[in-house]
C-alpha cells in the first residue's frame, strides 16, 4: 500500500509538468500583447514596455520562459499576475476558501440527497418514487447550469427574497444557493448512477444466496448491496469533487463569489497569462490528488481490489 502511494505520487510529477507545460504553451500561443492590454487603447511607452518584457521574460523562447515558471513553482512561487501585480499565490489563498465553501455545500447536497434518492429508486424499481426520481433528474440534467443559476437567483433571490442575491457578506447563507445550484446537476447523475447500480446488484447471485440464508432485508441492502453499488458512485463523486474544488466559472460569476472560477474568468477576460496558468496549475494538482484518493477508496470499499 505505502509503496503504491509513493509510486502514484511520483507518477504525478510528469503529469503535472506535462499539463502545466501544455497550458503554458497554449496561453503563450494565444498571442496578443499582454503589455498593451494593460494600457487599453493608449500607446505603451518604450521604457515601460522594455521593463515589463524583461520582468516577465516575454521575449525569451517558450521553453526558457517555462523553465523560469517551473523554477518559481518549485519554490512555491506562482508568479505575479500581470494585472494588479498581485502574487498569484496570494490570489489563490484568497480565492480557494471561497470555492471550497460552495464545493462543500454542493458535495454534501449531491452526496446525501443523490445517493438516498438513487438507492430508494433502485429498491422500488418501476414504482412511483422511481419514476419521480427519473423524471426530476432528467429535467435537471436537461437545463444548462447558467439557466438554473439565473432562474433560481431571480426567483429565490430577487423575487422571493429567500436567499442573498449575490456576494459573500452573509456568511454561510451566501454560499447556500450557489452551492445547491452547483450540486444539482451532479446530484441528478449520482441519483441515476446509484439507482442503476442498486437495481443491478439486487439481481446478483450473492443477494439470492443471502436471502436463502435468511438474512434480514435491511442487512442485505444496508451491507451487501449498498457497499457493492457504491463503487461507481464513489468514482463519480471523487472526480466530481475535483471539478467542484476547481471552481465553477459560471456559478461563481452569476452569484459573484470571488472564488477560483471567478478569478479564472477574470484572467481569461483580460488575457492575464500568469494568473491563468497559476490557477490552472492548481486545478491540475487538485484533479491528480483526487484521482489518487478515489483509487485508494476502491480498496476500502471492495476488498478484492489490492494495491501493491
Amino acid at each position, binding site marked *: 500500500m505505502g509503496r503504491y502511494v509513493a509510486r502514484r505520487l511520483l507518477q504525478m510529477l510528469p503529469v503535472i509538468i506535462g499539463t502545466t507545460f501544455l497550458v503554458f504553451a497554449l496561453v503563450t500561443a494565444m498571442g496578443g500583447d499582454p503589455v498593451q492590454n494593460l494600457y487599453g*487603447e493608449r500607446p505603451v511607452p518604450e521604457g515601460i514596455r522594455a521593463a515589463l518584457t524583461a520582468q516577465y521574460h516575454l521575449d525569451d523562447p517558450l521553453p526558457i520562459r517555462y523553465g523560469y515558471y517551473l523554477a518559481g513553482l518549485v519554490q512555491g512561487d506562482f508568479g505575479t499576475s500581470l494585472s494588479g501585480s498581485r502574487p498569484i499565490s496570494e490570489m489563490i489563498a484568497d480565492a480557494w476558501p471561497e470555492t471550497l465553501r460552495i464545493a462543500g455545500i454542493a458535495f454534501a447536497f449531491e452526496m446525501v440527497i443523490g445517493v438516498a434518492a438513487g438507492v430508494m429508486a433502485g429498491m422500488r424499481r418501476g414504482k412511483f418514487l422511481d419514476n419521480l426520481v427519473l423524471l426530476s433528474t432528467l429535467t435537471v440534467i436537461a437545463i444548462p447550469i447558467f439557466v438554473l443559476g439565473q432562474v433560481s437567483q431571480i426567483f429565490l433571490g430577487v423575487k422571493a427574497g*429567500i436567499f442573498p442575491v449575490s456576494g459573500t457578506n452573509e456568511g454561510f447563507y451566501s454560499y447556500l444557493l450557489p452551492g445547491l445550484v452547483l450540486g444539482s446537476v451532479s446530484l441528478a447523475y449520482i441519483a441515476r448512477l446509484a439507482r442503476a447500480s442498486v437495481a443491478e446488484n439486487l439481481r446478483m447471485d450473492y443477494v439470492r444466496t443471502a436471502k436463502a440464508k435468511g438474512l434480514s432485508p435491511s442487512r442485505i441492502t444496508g451491507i451487501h448491496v449498498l457497499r457493492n453499488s457504491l463503487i461507481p458512485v464513489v468514482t463519480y463523486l471523487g472526480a466530481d469533487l475535483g471539478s467542484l474544488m476547481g471552481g465553477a466559472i459560471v456559478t461563481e460569476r452569476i452569484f459573484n463569489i470571488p472564488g477560483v472560477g471567478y478569478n479564472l474568468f477574470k484572467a481569461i477576460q483580460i488575457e492575464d497569462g500568469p494568473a491563468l496558468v497559476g490557477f490552472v496549475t492548481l486545478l491540475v494538482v487538485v484533479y491528480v490528488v483526487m484521482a489518487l484518493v478515489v483509487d485508494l477508496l476502491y480498496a476500502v470499499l471492495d476488498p478484492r481490489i489490492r494495491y501493491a
Partner: protein
Amino acid sequence: MRGATRTRWAACAVAVALAATACGGGGDDSGGSGADGIVSSSWGDPQNPLEPANTNEVQGGKVLDMVFRGLIRYDPKTGEAQNMLAESIDSSDAQNFTIKLKDGWTFSNGEKVTAKSFVDAWNYGAALKNNQKNAYFFQYIEGYDKVHPESGSASAESLSGLKVVDDLTFTAKLSQKFSLWPDTLGYSAFVPLPKAFYDDHDAWLSKPIGNGPYTIESYAKGSSMNLRKWDDYPGDDKAKNGGVDLKVFTDNNTAYTSLTSGNLDLVDDVPASQLRNVEQDLGDRYINTPAGIIQTLSFPFYDKEWDTDNARKVRQGLSMAINRKQITDQIFQKTRTPASDWTSPVLGEDGGFKEGLCGKECTYNKAEAKKLIDEGGGIPGGQLKISYNADTGSHKEWVDAVCNSINNVMGNNQACVGGAVGTFADFRNQVSTQKMTGPWRAGWQMDYPLIQNFLQPLYYTNAPSNDGKWTNQDFDDLVDKANAETDKAKAITTFQDAEKVLVEQMPSIPLWYQNGSAGYSERVSNVELNPFSVPVYTEITVN
C-alpha cells in the same frame, strides 16, 4: 431583515421544491448593505496597484477620486477646473508656473500636505524605474526626457523643472509653452503623496492613505473595499454619507440584478442587455449622460491610397453616408449621441465643445455623399473594410450598421464590410504597428476635460495616439499657437480653428459621443456622474 427572511425560508423549505415562487410574500428586502449611511456600489477590480500615477482606468480612478484631492478639481457638473489645494497657479509666459498651496491641508494620518508632497510624488510618477503607467502626464515638465527617456536608462533622478520654494510654494518649468497646463492638474496622477507611500510602500498599497474626503477602512483585493467618511477632512466637499462599500462584480448583469433586488445601491455600468428593462425596473433612478468619450473611424495615412486629395473627398463622403442618428437610436438605445465635432459635450461651450462644428460633413446626406465619393474616384481598393476587435464591446453590430448605411448610399452591397480581428490585443497590435489598410474603429477617453486633450494627442504630427500617422502643418501650427496663448478663451478658439482643419481633411470620421450610465436604489438619492462617468460619491445621500 435577513433574520425575518430566514424564518420564512424555514417555513417554506418544503414548499420551495414544489413551487419556488409561492414563498415570496412581499419580501421588502431593501438595502442589503447593512450599516446606516453607507452606500454600496458596484466596482471592477483595478487593473493596477492603486498608485496615483499608475492608475489609468476608471475602476482604480474611482477610489483615487474618493481618497485624494489634488491642486485642481474638475467641477462634477460642469467639468470646469477649479482650485482645490491650490491657492493660485500663476504664469506670465505660459511656460514658468508658480504654484501656491492653501494652508491647513493634511493627509488622513495627520501629515501636513506641503509643496514637497507634490514635487516628490510627481518625481516618483515620472521616473522610469517606477514603471508608472501615467508617467506621460509629466511629459510637459522640463527634464522629463532625462528621467524617462524613450529608450535607454534614465540620466537624472528628478525633474529639473520642479523646484520647492517654501513649505507652500513650488515652481514648475515646462519644456514648451502650454497655457492650459494648470487645467490638466486635476488628473489623479498629480495628487500629493504622504511619506508613508515611500517609507513602507507595500503597506501603503494594501491600504492607501490620502488627503481626500474618504479614508480606506479595509481592502480585500479582488473582492471589496470599504471606505469611510473622514470626519476631519479640511475641504468643503465633505462626504454627505457615512461611507462607500465597493464590491467587485465580474458580471455587470449580476450587479444589475443585485441592484434591482435591493442588495446594492449603485451600479455605474448598466449592461446593454438590460437597457430595455431599465425604464420599468428603475424609472427615474436611471442616469444616461454624456461621458468624455468619442468614437471615431480612423484612417491609415501611411497607406498611399488614403493620403491623397481624392481620398480626402472620399472620407468626407463616407462621413456623410453614415446615418448616425438612426444607429445611435436603434443599436445603442440612445446611450450614444451623434457626434458633430471631435470633442465631447462634457467640455461645455466654454471648454471648447461646439455642436455642429463639423457641419454638413458630419450630417447624413445620401446624394451629396455619393457624389463626393464618386468625385474622389471611389473607395480606394474598391471596398471599405472597417476593422474592429470582436472579443469585447460588441462592435460588430454597429460596424455592420455603419456599413449598411454606406452600402445603401453606394447602392452596392459589397461597398463596405466589417473586418473582425479576434482579440483586442491583436487589433491594437495591428493598429500600433501600422498594418492597417482601411479604416478602423477608434475610441478616445479624455484624460482631463480640455479641448487640447481631444486634439493634440490624436492628430498632432507624431503624437503618441496618432495611430493613423496623419500630419498637417496648418493643424500643428494652430495647436502650437493655442498652447502659447495665455488667455484661456483665446486658446480655446484657436483650438477650435485647428479643429476646423479636421473638417476639411477628415483624418478621422467622428461617429458618436458615448454616454455614461448608472442606476441606483430607492435607498439613496442625489446620484450624479462626473465628466469621467464616475459617480460623485461625496454628494450621495442615504435616505
